[in-house]
C-alpha cells in the first residue's frame, strides 16, 4: 500500500497497464513530453517510449477517431480529452462510432477504448472547464460510463476499463484529484494523504465496473451520488445528523440497480445529487427508475439536488455548485416528510 493522490493513482494505473500490455497506448493533447495539464501521464513517455505515449494535435474528434482505428487493429488506446468540456467535437466519433462498432458489425470488429476526461467544476474554470456531461453518455447505447471518487477506485477502475472489451468513458472529478473535497471551499484544502481511500495497492488490481459502493450505511434515506458529490453528501449527512445510506454509484452504465433498489426499499426515501445541470441530468434517470421499481416503498418524493440549469458561471461557481448545505437541506426535508 502507498498513499497516492487521484492523479498519482491514475498515472500508476496507466504505468501498470503499459508495462503489462504492450497494446496499451496513451495519447492526447499535451500528454506526451509534458505529461498532461493535470500531470496524469507525467513520466510515461520517458519510461515507455515515444510511440506508447505521445502528444496529439488539438483535435478531439481526431484523437477519438484514430483511437477507434487503433482499437479495431487490436491495440488498447487510452486517450485523454483535456477537459470533459472539450469532448463535444468528438461526440460524433464517441456516440455514433465507438459505441456501435461491435453491434453494427455483429461482433466482426470491436472497440476496446478508454476515453479519460476530467470533469466537474470548482476550479474557477467557468462554463468551459467545469462541465459534467455524464448524461450525454448514458443516453448512448453501447458505452460504459464510470467515474471514481477515490484514488483506490481510480486506479482499480481504470485498470478494469483498460481490460474491458468495450469503450469506456472514464470521467475524473478534477476537484478530487488532490483530495476528498467535500464542497467546503471556504476551508483549507484536504489532501488524500492520510485518507483511508488514498491507500492504493501497488501493481495490478481491479475494481469491477458496474458495482456501486455503499460509503455510509444508514436507515433514514438513501443518497445516490457519484464523484465529488460523494464527499459532499458524506459531509452533509454528518452536519445534518441524518442517518443516510450514501451510495457511490461509481458506474452509471452499467448501473448497479440491485444495490440501489435494495437500499431505497429499506429506507423508503431517496435524494439524488449531481453537479451537472438538473434537466435531463443523470439524476432524472435515477429518479425515474427508483420511483418505478420502488414505488410502493417510497414515503416521500425523490429529490434531486443538481447544478442549476444555466452554464457554469465563473464568479458565482460556489452558488452554482450543489454544496453540503443544499444537499443537507434536501436530506433533512426528505426525512421530515
Amino acid at each position, binding site marked *: 500500500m502507498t498513499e497516492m493522490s487521484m492523479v498519482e493513482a491514475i498515472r500508476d494505473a496507466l504505468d501498470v497497464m503499459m508495462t503489462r500490455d504492450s497494446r496499451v*497506448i496513451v495519447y492526447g493533447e499535451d500528454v506526451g513530453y509534458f505529461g498532461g495539464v493535470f500531470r496524469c501521464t507525467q513520466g510515461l513517455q520517458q519510461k515507455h517510449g515515444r*510511440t*506508447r505515449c505521445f502528444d*496529439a*494535435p488539438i*483535435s478531439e*474528434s*481526431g484523437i477519438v*477517431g*484514430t*483511437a*477507434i*482505428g*487503433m482499437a*479495431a*487493429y*487490436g*491495440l488498447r*488506446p487510452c486517450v485523454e480529452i483535456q477537459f470533459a468540456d472539450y469532448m463535444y*467535437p468528438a461526440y*460524433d*466519433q464517441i456516440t*455514433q*462510432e465507438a459505441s456501435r*462498432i*461491435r*453491434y*453494427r*458489425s*455483429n*461482433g*466482426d*470488429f*470491436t472497440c476496446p477504448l478508454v476515453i479519460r476526461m476530467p470533469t466537474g467544476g470548482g476550479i474557477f474554470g467557468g462554463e468551459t472547464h467545469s462541465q459534467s456531461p455524464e448524461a450525454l453518455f448514458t443516453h448512448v*447505447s*453501447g458505452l*460504459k460510463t464510470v467515474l471514481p471518487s477515490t484514488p483506490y477506485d481510480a486506479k482499480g477502475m481504470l485498470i478494469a476499463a483498460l481490460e*474491458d*472489451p*468495450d469503450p469506456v468513458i472514464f470521467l475524473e472529478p478534477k476537484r478530487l484529484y488532490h483530495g476528498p473535497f467535500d464542497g467546503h471551499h471556504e476551508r483549507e484544502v484536504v489532501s488524500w494523504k492520510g485518507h483511508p481511500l488514498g491507500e492504493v495497492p501497488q501493481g495490478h488490481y481491479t475494481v469491477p465496473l*458496474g458495482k456501486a459502493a455503499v460509503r455510509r450505511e444508514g436507515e433514514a434515506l438513501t443518497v445516490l451520488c457519484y464523484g465529488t458529490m460523494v464527499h459532499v453528501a458524506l459531509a452533509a449527512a454528518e452536519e445534518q445528523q441524518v442517518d443516510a445510506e450514501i451510495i457511490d454509484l461509481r458506474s452509471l*452504465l*452499467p*448501473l*448497479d*440497480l*440491485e444495490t440501489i433498489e435494495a437500499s431505497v426499499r429499506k429506507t423508503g426515501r431517496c435524494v439524488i445529487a449531481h453537479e451537472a445541470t438538473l434537466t435531463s441530468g443523470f439524476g432524472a434517470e435515477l429518479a425515474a427508475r427508483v420511483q418505478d421499481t420502488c414505488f410502493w416503498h417510497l414515503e416521500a418524493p425523490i429529490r434531486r439536488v443538481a447544478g442549476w440549469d444555466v452554464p457554469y458561471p465563473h464568479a458565482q461557481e460556489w452558488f452554482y455548485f450543489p454544496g453540503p448545505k443544499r444537499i443537507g437541506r434536501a436530506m433533512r426535508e426528505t426525512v421530515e416528510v
Partner: protein
Amino acid sequence: MQDATRPRLTIPEPAFRPGDTPDYSDVKIPKAGDVTLPPLDVEPRLLRNHAFSIIRILRRDGEAVGPWAKLLTDEDLVAGLKQMMTLRKLDARMIAAQRQGKTSFYVPQLGEEAVTIAFQRALSDGDMNFPTYRNAGLLVAQDYPLETMMNQIFSNEKDPLAGRQMPVLYSAKDYGFFTVSGNLGTQFVQAVGWAMAAAIDGSDAVAAGWIGDGSTAESDFHSAMVFASTYKPPVILNIVNNQWAISTFQGIAKGDSGTFAARALGFGMAALRVDGNDFLAVHAVAKWAVRRAREGLGPTVIEHVTYRAGGHSTSDNPEAYRPKAESDAWPLGDPIERLKLHLIGRGLWSEERHAQAEAEIHDTVVAAQKAAEKNGTLHSGPSPRRRGIFDGLYAEIPLHLDRQRKAAEKWL
C-alpha cells in the same frame, strides 16, 4: 441594391441543369501517358503537377501508354474486367430487387467500378480498407460470396449482420473491409488510426481510407489529413470524386478552383490525381502508394476522378437536378468499355468472350440471388431473430438491458 464592387455570396453552380445539353468538349483531359512516375521516396512538395493533372494510361484507342503502364498480368486484367462486370450486374439486380420490395435500399457504383476493383488488387492480406457505402467493389475484387452480400441486402435469416444494419453497409474483417458507417466521413480518420496502430505494432500492414467528394467537407476529412501528415503512418487516403453528392455537385464541397488532391499538398503529403475510369491507371497509382506506405515512406492521398453514372441510391432521382444524358457526355468514358477495348486490342479478349462472360456472370448473380432469397427477403420469408437485437451490444449484457430483453419477450 448592391454596389458592383461590394462583396456578394458566390454560390457555385454546375455547368448543366435538367433541360441543358451537357457538353464537356472544353474540359481539358490530359493525354494518357503524360504524367511522370515519381520515385517512391519523392518529396511530396514536388508532386504539384500530380495533384492537378490526371494520371492516365489507357488511350482512347485502348492502348496503354506512359511510365505508369505495365504493372498487371494478363490474368489480373481479365479477372478485373469480369469483376467489374459482376459488380455492375449485382447492382442492376439489386436495384430491381429494391423495386420489387425485397430490400429497403441499395447503392449502386455504376460507372465507378474500376476505382475499387483496381485498387483492391494492390492490397495484400492483412491490409484494411475503411470504406464507404459505395465501395462494394473492394469485396467483389476478392470474390467475396455474392450470396452473403445479398443476405445482408435482403436482411434475411442469414444476414451476417443479423438485420442490424442497412443494406450495403457491409462488414468483413477477413476481407480487410471495415464495418461501413451510415455517417459520412468518420471512417477516414479511423483508417489513419488503424495505420498508426500498424506502425506502432511494427507490422507491415497498410490501411486504405475511402471518402466521397462531397464528404471531404466533413470534419473527419480534416482530422485524417492532420493526423496522417503529423504521424506519417502507412495509409492511403482515397477521395472518390464522382462529381456528385446526392443532388449537390462537387463545386459546393471544393469551391470553383483547384482539385481535391491539392488539399493534401497543403499538408505536405504526397497527392496523386488519377483517371478513375482507367483500370490500369487506378491500379498503378494504388500500387505506388501501397508500396510507399509499406516501406515506411508515408501516406498518399489519391483523388479518383470518375462519375456517378447512376442515382445516388434507390431513393434518388438524378433527373431532378442534372441532365439525363450527362453521364454519356462524361469525357472519361466507361471503365468496363475502356478495359474491354484494351484487352481486345491486346488479343486477350473478344466480343464473343465478352458476351459469354456476360452470360456466365448473369447466371452466377442470379444463382446467388436465388440462394439468398431462400433465406428470406425484407418482407417475406425467414428474417433475423427479433430477440437478437439485445445481443452483442456489449461483450456481456448489462443488467438494465437484460431486464429490457425480458420485458420484450412478451412482444415476440
